[in-house]
């Protein structure tokens, strides 16, 4: 079975993430850019499935030039080929526009399954996978912690706010994974060398057949009005426990009328 995995380059959450105060969009230069951890789990899921059942894994990203680093990382993990959706006219896309571009890119492939992360650590809208399913006319199963494929049927445990459900859908389908799905492998030296030779194709607005009057920040369906940074939190009192630490916390809470 052939699988497309959507991967995204995001600011490393271990470094300080910032919004640009002119337009309150993500300052991509403020932090190191990494493959979103959740998407590395998506890649791992796809690799395990193709290792068991054959077929190829294509990783797909939409992002600026340097997002190729992310594609190389996934190729080094073992993905077979990559598609980079890259066009200046796509900069500043919102989820609705991103899903349109990604859907067009996926239509150029012929895959049985599309795997995404449940939620990106920067956008956090968690809506690209379901938007994509709607655009492609496919069923979708989001937030899965287990995934099995039997012929043309997928079976998954889907975690929702009130517990979990056992869910089935027929392939092709869109799936999004949560962090409990697996531990992603690290690329080894052989993988890193092999990745250099694997094919990466680049698709722009024209290749995807998108209407340029619908793409990019100027045509986004949602726009920022204004923003504000939270005043930084400061450290309060700190005491070393001399055996009465618990009592001191109680006194602090009582003085603040919290107990």
């Amino acid at each position, binding site marked *: 079975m052939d699988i497309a995995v959507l991967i995204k380059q995001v600011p490393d*959450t*271990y470094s300080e993430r910032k*919004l640009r105060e002119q337009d*309150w969009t993500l300052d991509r230069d403020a932090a190191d850019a990494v493959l979103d951890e959740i998407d590395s789990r998506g890649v791992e899921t796809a690799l395990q499935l193709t290792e068991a059942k054959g077929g190829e894994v294509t990783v797909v990203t939409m992002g600026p030039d340097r997002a190729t680093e992310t594609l190389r990382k996934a190729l080094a993990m073992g993905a077979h080929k990559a598609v980079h959706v890259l066009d200046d006219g796509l900069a500043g896309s*919102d*989820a*609705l526009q991103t*899903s349109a571009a990604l859907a067009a890119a996926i239509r150029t492939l012929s895959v049985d399954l599309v795997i995404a992360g449940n939620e990106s*650590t920067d956008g*956090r*809208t*968690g*809506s*690209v*996978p*379901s*938007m994509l399913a*709607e655009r492609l006319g*496919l*069923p*979708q*199963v*989001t937030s899965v912690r287990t995934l099995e494929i039997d012929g043309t049927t997928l079976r998954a445990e*889907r975690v*929702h*706010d*009130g*517990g*979990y*459900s*056992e*869910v089935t*859908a027929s392939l092709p389908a869109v799936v999004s994974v949560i962090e409990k799905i697996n531990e992603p492998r690290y690329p080894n030296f052989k993988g890193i060398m092999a990745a250099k030779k694997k094919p990466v194709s680049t698709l722009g607005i024209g290749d995807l057949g998108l209407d340029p009057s619908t793409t990019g920040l100027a045509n986004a*369906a*949602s*726009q920022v*009005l*204004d*923003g*504000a*940074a*939270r005043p930084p*939190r*400061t*450290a*309060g*009192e*700190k*005491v*070393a*426990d001399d055996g*009465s*630490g*618990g*009592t001191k*916390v*109680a006194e*602090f*809470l009582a003085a603040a009328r*919290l107990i």
Partner: protein
Amino acid sequence: MAEVLVLVDHHDGVVRKVTAELLTAAARLGTPAAVVVGKPGTVESLAAELGALGAAIVYAAESDDAAGFLITPQVAGLAAAAAAATPAAILVPATVDGREISGRLAVRLNSGLLADAVDVESIDGEVVATQSVFGGEYTVRYRVTTGVPIISIRPNAVEAAPTAASPQVVPVQITIDPAISATVIADHPEPIGDRPELGAASVVVSGGRGVGSADNFHVVEELADSLGGAVGASRAAVDSGYYPPQFQVGQTGTTVSPQVYIALGISGAIQHRAGMQTSKTIIAVNKDSEAPIFEIADFGVVGDLFTVAPLLTGAVKARKS
């Protein structure tokens, strides 16, 4: 005034609390209209309650197929109600289901989506949503420029303050396309414990890797219980199997903003802070005086949680009695 559609979150005949919050938010933007998607007969049992929560209109999207399929019935219900109402906005809960529903709906209606809002307001007749970005580092206000604003609102973000209405029930037709739908074979609800829900609790006591084992977590639970609070856990505690995943606090877990947050044996990694740093008062107990959690704690104790927490539990109980 234009209608504002609210997707009703209900299960086994019970309307979930977030629905009341969304109806309150809707009333700020226009006339609250509840959209119920369910098996035939569902609306009859829920309409009065929805009226009490402020719904002036109840759209009944009933179908025998509404229960077995995932997500697509609600998308169809909202799309049908939107066609009937020409609403000013559509509000859904920012739950796993709600986010998925809103994503599909945004494509179907070619409308802008504002996800995980913590507030909504009407400014000069325009719907504006506030989002909390990077775990509360920033607040940003957004508006929609295409179609009907579709907004998912974080549970517990808006306080329910209903003005009761006597709703008019309006049936709408829905058809669900099985070709684009996943099927639910079995649901396994989490048992609801005696403790308050993590996202809504006014006190949260969380344990981290420093708690050391699943057995030791009773120390965290006992402190939470003495304060009438919820229990949370760091990802390291969850990954180590000390506590179940649904209690994870942080960037990839629940975001909490209680009156009091107590971190026991948690280092305070940036991804944990992203889920709790907007708490009103933060208390930290950690052996390591250099632990980053102390940078944001209003009161910190450098010490062993196994001596500090039980003493605190005792002191809280003593004050109550």
